[in-house]
């Protein structure tokens, strides 16, 4: 074991990655002092729900709620970590105090990338963002969403379902970067059939003054709406780690080893961590990645190299415009799939793409299938 007795573990971040790390530490037998620091006042919640059911649910405001934490940690909520001294093993908090640790989990996640500093430009990243947007939708405002990725399209779908007039401004056809042209086309047709306005552009800016912001396209076209929202990627929350020397040079993520460790006594998991992949270190900002990374890293903090490394293929899902989509394997897949069940057209279908190297991508569209079977489908010989 590295670094002597483990009496105190600090987990910075109370999203699903931090929560799972804290749970796993307990499950693996750590019975010392456990402290969880979270910058939001809320208990941990399910972030994927914010842009899906939470925008839709009638009066039900519970779709994001997770079962109460069972780890029995001291929870410091509404408190932000502002610095780390890895040599003295101290985390500094914004309230002025410092927490000593024997082991540390970095799980401060990421935040929405913005196109402007204007408060008119809304983003959807946290629970407060979602509740605030949900409140705005009650008046059925016109909405423009900048960003044609899965999040932007989910938000647009929620706004449309609330009865708003919605425009999505996308760099190229929406979802193409993530899903490839074949699937992207299925989604675009479903979206436009429901009344979504799609605008493709090379570049979009958010301009204007507070109270009067608008979207300006590369050709000068101006798009105005009562609600302006951007969904243009995320930025890891790692500024507080800059002086600790744990952030990749020229980047903003924390590179980790195959067990999520930065140093023997420090782990990084979730949206801020760049795990080794066949394509180099990559952030894998998905729900299942956060969970699996946290499990592996918590055990590695306790037993080092004896803990198994991460072996994991992320699972991705989205719900939008009446389509429920699940996928395992590399995205975007190239070309057209073979149909294991169903056929083209957006109906219930189970699809597979072969990548030539023995691996594959499996995707289910409006087709209920448990993840283990979807994984087997992805791995099946072509």
């Amino acid at each position: 074991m590295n670094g002597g007795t483990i009496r105190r573990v600090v987990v910075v971040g109370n999203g699903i990655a931090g929560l799972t790390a804290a749970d796993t530490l307990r499950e693996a037998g750590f019975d010392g002092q456990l402290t969880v620091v979270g910058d939001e006042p809320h208990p941990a919640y399910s972030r994927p729900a914010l842009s899906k059911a939470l925008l839709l649910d009638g009066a039900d405001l519970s779709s994001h709620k997770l079962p109460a934490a069972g780890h029995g940690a001291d929870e410091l909520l509404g408190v932000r970590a502002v610095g780390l001294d890895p040599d003295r093993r101290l985390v500094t908090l914004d309230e002025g105090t410092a927490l000593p640790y024997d082991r540390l989990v970095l799980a401060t996640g990421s935040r929405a990338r913005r196109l402007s500093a204007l408060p008119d430009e809304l983003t959807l990243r946290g629970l407060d963002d979602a509740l605030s947007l949900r409140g705005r939708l009650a008046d059925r405002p016109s909405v423009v969403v900048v960003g044609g990725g899965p999040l932007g399209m989910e938000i647009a779908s929620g706004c449309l379902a609330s009865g708003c007039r919605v425009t999505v401004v996308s760099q190229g056809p929406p979802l193409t970067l993530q899903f490839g042209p074949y699937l992207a086309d299925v989604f675009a047709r479903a979206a436009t059939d429901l009344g979504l306005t799609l605008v493709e552009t090379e570049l979009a800016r958010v301009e204007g003054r507070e109270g009067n912001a608008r979207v300006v396209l590369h050709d000068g076209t101006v798009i105005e709406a009562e609600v302006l929202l951007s969904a243009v990627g995320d930025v890891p929350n790692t500024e507080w780690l800059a002086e600790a020397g744990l952030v990749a040079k020229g980047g903003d993520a924390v590179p980790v080893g195959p067990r999520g460790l930065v140093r023997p006594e420090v782990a990084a998991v979730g949206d801020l961590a760049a795990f080794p992949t066949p394509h180099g270190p990559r952030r894998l900002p998905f729900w299942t990645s956060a969970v699996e990374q946290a499990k592996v890293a918590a055990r590695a903090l306790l037993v080092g190299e004896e803990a198994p490394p991460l072996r994991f293929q992320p699972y991705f899902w989205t719900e939008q415009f009446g389509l429920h989509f699940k996928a395992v394997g590399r995205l975007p897949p190239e070309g057209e799939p073979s149909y294991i069940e169903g056929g083209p057209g957006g109906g219930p279908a189970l699809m597979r793409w072969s990548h030539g190297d023995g691996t594959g991508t499996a995707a289910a569209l409006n087709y209920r299938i448990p993840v283990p079977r979807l994984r087997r489908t992805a791995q099946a010989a072509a």
Partner: protein
Amino acid sequence: MKIILDRPRCEGHGLCEEAAPHLMHLDDEGELVLDVEQFGEADAGPANAAVRVCPVAALRVA
């Protein structure tokens, strides 16, 4: 201890089946079946992992 399913919340992701395959599975219709509802200390780890991994909190342990 007991696993409790809030069926209307279940979206059939099946991540719970992956976490605790001997306690639950999705049937051919994609509906979650709890093969073991009452479980002992030995299964507490997988059961809690199944509860935790559900992105729609359709499961809980009581």
